[in-house]
């Protein structure tokens, strides 16, 4: 499979009254065609910002992309003008968001919100776009698609709205879908349905998916590869089986320890990670996870380890080997 998207050394900052927030600090990753990549991390670790940056969707100012490139089909997305980006967004790369309740425009019909992509990007006429929109609604599991085009967002439940969002995002059969915690705001049963729907649509369209989440449980069922982010850095990258079987970064270890698993004894206590993510206002010195790390050594306080390969398809950013607790 060829590489579809290659992000190199992306840095995003926000100027705030309290100082500069270093939201994304030089991350690099690739996405292959048809692949599902999960981006995992606690809230505030820069996973959403890194994806929004690629599509030019962060507000500038206060946001600022300090460096990096994002190569997609021979173009650097970060260098494109706004009109050029508009031809990519929704057509080549689509996004769905965390809050289905607020992500749809409350005063426009669902039909209008689906067809405007079709008409903008594919040049469909009104009638064709409407028929296509009805099909799309049916395909994301909303019965009576044709009827419901005339409805407004408030007439749908949260789960249904997320289905509508998916229909909008997939209207032009994009090659990449970025799903920004699309299930976080939903009930558990609905979450599973949405995950299932995305998997099914991925197969139908053959697109690549970037799935942003803080829930490692969801990742196992959907992703091929996983990136773990912490404080704006990528700290571990691995295929999904290796990550679960053999986490190599202390942060990943801690995340997995906090996750309930069926293969553990019932009285096994879940372990929370002590402390809170670091203040991104301070330019990181040393490893950002050091303060919360069980394995911390002297060097962690002064030098921030770079993301380095340790095995084929596997990278971590850590000075120590979590198996032995000794420096690598």
């Amino acid at each position, binding site marked *: 499979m060829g590489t579809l998207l290659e992000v190199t050394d992306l840095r995003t900052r*926000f*100027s*705030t*009254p*309290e*100082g*500069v*927030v270093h*939201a994304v600090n030089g991350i690099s990753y690739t996405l292959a065609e048809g692949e599902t990549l999960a981006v995992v991390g*606690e*809230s*505030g*670790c*820069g*996973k*959403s*910002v890194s994806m*929004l940056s690629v599509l030019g969707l*962060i*507000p*500038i*100012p*206060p*946001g600022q992309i300090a460096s990096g490139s994002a190569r997609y089909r021979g173009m650097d997305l970060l260098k494109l003008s706004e009109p050029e980006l508009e031809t990519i967004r929704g057509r080549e790369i689509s996004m769905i*968001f*965390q*809050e289905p309740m607020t992500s749809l425009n409350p005063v426009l019909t669902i039909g209008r919100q689906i067809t405007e992509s079709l008409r903008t990007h594919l040049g469909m006429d009104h009638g064709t776009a409407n028929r296509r929109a009805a099909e799309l609604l049916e395909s994301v599991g909303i019965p009576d698609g044709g009827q419901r085009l005339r409805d407004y967002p408030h007439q749908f439940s949260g789960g249904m709205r997320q289905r509508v969002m998916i229909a909008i995002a997939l209207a032009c059969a994009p090659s990449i879908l970025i799903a*920004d915690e699309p299930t976080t705001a939903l009930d558990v049963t609905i979450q599973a349905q949405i995950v299932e729907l995305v998997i099914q649509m991925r197969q139908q369209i053959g697109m690549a998916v970037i799935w942003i989440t803080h829930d490692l449980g969801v990742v196992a069922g959907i992703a091929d590869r996983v990136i773990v982010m912490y404080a704006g850095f990528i700290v571990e990258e691995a295929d999904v089986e290796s990550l679960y079987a053999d986490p190599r970064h202390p942060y990943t270890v801690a995340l997995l320890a906090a996750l309930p698993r069926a293969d553990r004894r019932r009285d096994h206590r879940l372990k929370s990670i002590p402390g809170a*993510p*670091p*203040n*991104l*206002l301070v330019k990181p010195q040393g490893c950002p996870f050091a303060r919360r790390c069980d394995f911390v050594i002297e060097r962690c306080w002064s030098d921030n380890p770079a993301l380095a390969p340790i095995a084929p398809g596997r990278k971590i950013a850590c000075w120590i080997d979590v198996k032995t607790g000794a420096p690598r």
Partner: protein
Amino acid sequence: MVETTLSASIHPVDELLTPPLSLRQLVWRRFRRHTMALFGVVVLILLFTYAFGGALFLTESYANQTETGVRLQGPSAVHPFGTDTVGRDILARTIYGGQISLLIGLTAVLIETGFGILIGAFAGYYGGVVDSVLMRITEAMLNIPQLFLLIVMAKFFSGKLPNITLLGRTFSGSVVVIIGIIGLTSWMYLARIVRAEFLSLKENEFVLAARAIGTPRREIIFQHILPNSIAPIVVSATLGVANAILSEAYISFLGLGVQPPTATWGNMLDGAYNYIDTAPWLWVFPGTLIVLTVLSINFLGDGLRDALDPRSRVA
């Protein structure tokens, strides 16, 4: 999403949520807010000094002294602001007129605030029939433009009061009338604000607790709930002063306000448009003073709103 992502990582997040600004812009914005309010205070102090300090140099009888021989003279060394249609010195009149205009602004707001708080508090606290009746009256009053009401009421009370002598000075009885009617026609917005505050506050635990131990209603209203809704009242009253000064200017401009010889910035403008091409100084000076005063009070009120009510974000 950008906001939520960031909000977890830095503590004072409110500024980040809206609207997007760079650091420089935010600092500038806060600074400007403060300087505008400060500017307002400084100008207001200057205006008060002008109106009350100026009286030390020029007497009121001089301000009211007519001398038709020098009518409609342009600004000169003797009359820096010129003279009016009957030869009175405009500088002296803006000083004494300023006293009356500022006095009307402040006292009318006292009446307005008193009425607004009483009506709003009773409607909000008692609810039910009391609330409906009071709010219907409020609505009825809001329905007629204030200026029309002022004109009708000015006619209603005109000539009712004799001139008043206070501290050795004589004021036209119309001053009291104007203060009264401005107060009586402007309390509605404040009443609505107070009512809304009371409606939400009266369900709070501290009020329920006070009721549970048998605190008298009057005490609950005035000592428990009212102090908690003071911020919007202060802001509204401050802006109310500006509105009252404007109202006086409008009604006096229409010739139905304070009657001469007592000067106000408003009645100095009455008839000025007849001399628009020959004597612009008739309206330039009092008009500018009105704009400056109202502008300063608006700045101050805006600053107070920001300072006292962090929930309201007026961009």
